[in-house]
């Protein structure tokens, strides 16, 4: 399953306006999805949706960043850039999943957490940090699938998990190539060069031991055949879930801790 596309070509591909979003995938992958709203604190952030559904007869909690398919939808979903209440809603639903013993499936697709006044006032940093800490010890399995853009801390807030899968053309990075070029080279126009340099593809992340599985996309990308892409995601989730729901919780949490604990490159002499 070699992928001939460069990192930059993949970025262009996942920005295709016809690329399926979580709203497209959820009904194709899960049965009887029921959406839940609100963080019980401040509001309901439509950049992250969450609810309950079923896959292979197993009830699961689904939490997803949602990109809009047109301007109208993007106004509502804020181009999938969540505010703190989005992360807090996600955590609320994860805790609910923990209580009722449901695995959590997170679908990641965001340019990043929103940068704005309200987001800062309501503690964007705290909301993300809390998710990282609580997801690390959530007593139910978490699977995360990066559908398109895995943008920095905004993606990580839904991506502390037992297993991370990425669609073949998805990317996951510490900062957008544009931001990278702008900060380190003071020249945002070098984003293409940055994209190909900073190791953001599914294969790169697999090599680093961060991504565990790559889910194939239809030839030309998921937008060419959304049903086929959904089938591949569904197939992945169906085979992955049994591996985790059978594990004793202590064992599961220890393995999750180690999955992140071991990431790092340094010398010690």
């Amino acid at each position, binding site marked *: 399953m070699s992928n001939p596309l460069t990192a930059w070509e993949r970025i262009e591909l996942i920005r295709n306006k016809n690329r399926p979003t979580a709203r497209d995938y959820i009904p194709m992958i899960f049965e009887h999805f029921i959406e839940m709203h609100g963080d019980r604190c401040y509001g309901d952030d439509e950049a992250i949706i969450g609810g309950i559904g079923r896959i292979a007869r197993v009830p699961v909690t689904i939490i997803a960043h949602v990109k809009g398919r047109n301007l109208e939808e993007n106004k509502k979903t804020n181009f999938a850039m969540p505010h703190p209440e989005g992360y807090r809603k996600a955590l609320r639903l994860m805790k609910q999943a923990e209580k009722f013993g449901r695995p959590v499936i997170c679908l990641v697709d965001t340019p990043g957490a929103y940068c704005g006044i309200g987001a800062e006032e309501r503690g964007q940093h705290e909301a993300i*940090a809390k998710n990282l*800490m609580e997801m690390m010890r959530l007593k139910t399995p978490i699977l995360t699938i990066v559908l398109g853009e895995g943008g920095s801390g905004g993606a990580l807030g839904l991506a502390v998990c037992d297993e991370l899968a990425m669609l073949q053309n998805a990317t996951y990075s510490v900062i957008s190539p544009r931001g990278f070029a702008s900060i380190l080279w003071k020249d945002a126009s070098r984003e293409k060069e940055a994209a190909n340099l900073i190791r953001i593809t599914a294969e790169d992340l697999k090599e680093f031991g961060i991504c565990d599985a790559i889910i194939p996309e239809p030839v030309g990308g998921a937008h060419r055949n959304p049903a086929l892409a959904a089938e591949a995601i569904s197939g992945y989730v169906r085979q992955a879930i049994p591996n985790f729901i059978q594990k004793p919780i202590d064992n599961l949490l220890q393995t999750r801790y180690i999955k992140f604990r071991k990431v*790092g490159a340094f010398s010690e002499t």
Partner: protein
Amino acid sequence: MLEDLFSIVKSRATGAATAQSAGDGHVSVPADLMFKCPRCQKMEFMENFTLSGKVCPSCNYHSRLTARERLEITADPTSFSEYDAALKSVNPIDFPGYPEKLAQLRAATGLEEAIITGECAIEGSRCVIGVMDSHFMMASMGSVVGEKITRAFEKATEKKLPVVMFTASGGARMQEGIISLMQMAKTSGAVSRHDDSGGLYITVLTDPTTGGVAASFAALGDIIIAEPKVLIGFAGRRVIENTIRQRLPDDFQSAEFFLSHGFVDMIVERSAMRKTLGRLLRFHERGDRP
């Protein structure tokens, strides 16, 4: 904002005696003679500024200390022993120029990396301590910073000691790519285990605590203290201004801003920090000391 931070650090790290202009007069003075407060823009003789503990006499902005200076004024004399001093950064994504940059910063700061961790006593109470140093690549968090913090929490959990973490950072170490992002999860995981074991964790937010550090272990203290006037926040100021296309108020993302919005327990002056930490640590001691 990050760009500003980087340029400030770069000029300091290269040891360049950069001239600062006072007002519009283009009067050049050696950078080490005068201190210009980045908050109120007032100039002060460096000597007065240093005598005041590097606090701006005009506006009370608590400026950046080196990790060694911080340990000096925080830990009881001779009580500090360092952990993991031998950890060194490598170049995981083969980013051009990164090893050279690290070498240059090591030479300029005398530090191996952007954080010092270890064990000490504060007013007689033992604790694990971590101090980030913004003079080293704006204390961005790469593998070494993440690993040292994680190990510090793991040791504290094992030894049943509280953790005091002085945070400062521009965010994730971009030169290490996705591996730096994962340090947010890794450190937060270590905090969660320390928390599960009943251990106390006190965060002291110093200038600046932003980005991926603000959005991970820095936000997770049982008690969160900030120094006056310091910059705290998730996103850079310029990024937000570019997003919303308007100028932000001056106190936006200050310690005071986050105190009023409920994300900081207290603002503590540098001169009172050691006593405050000592008292908080004693409150949580598990022995029978009063």
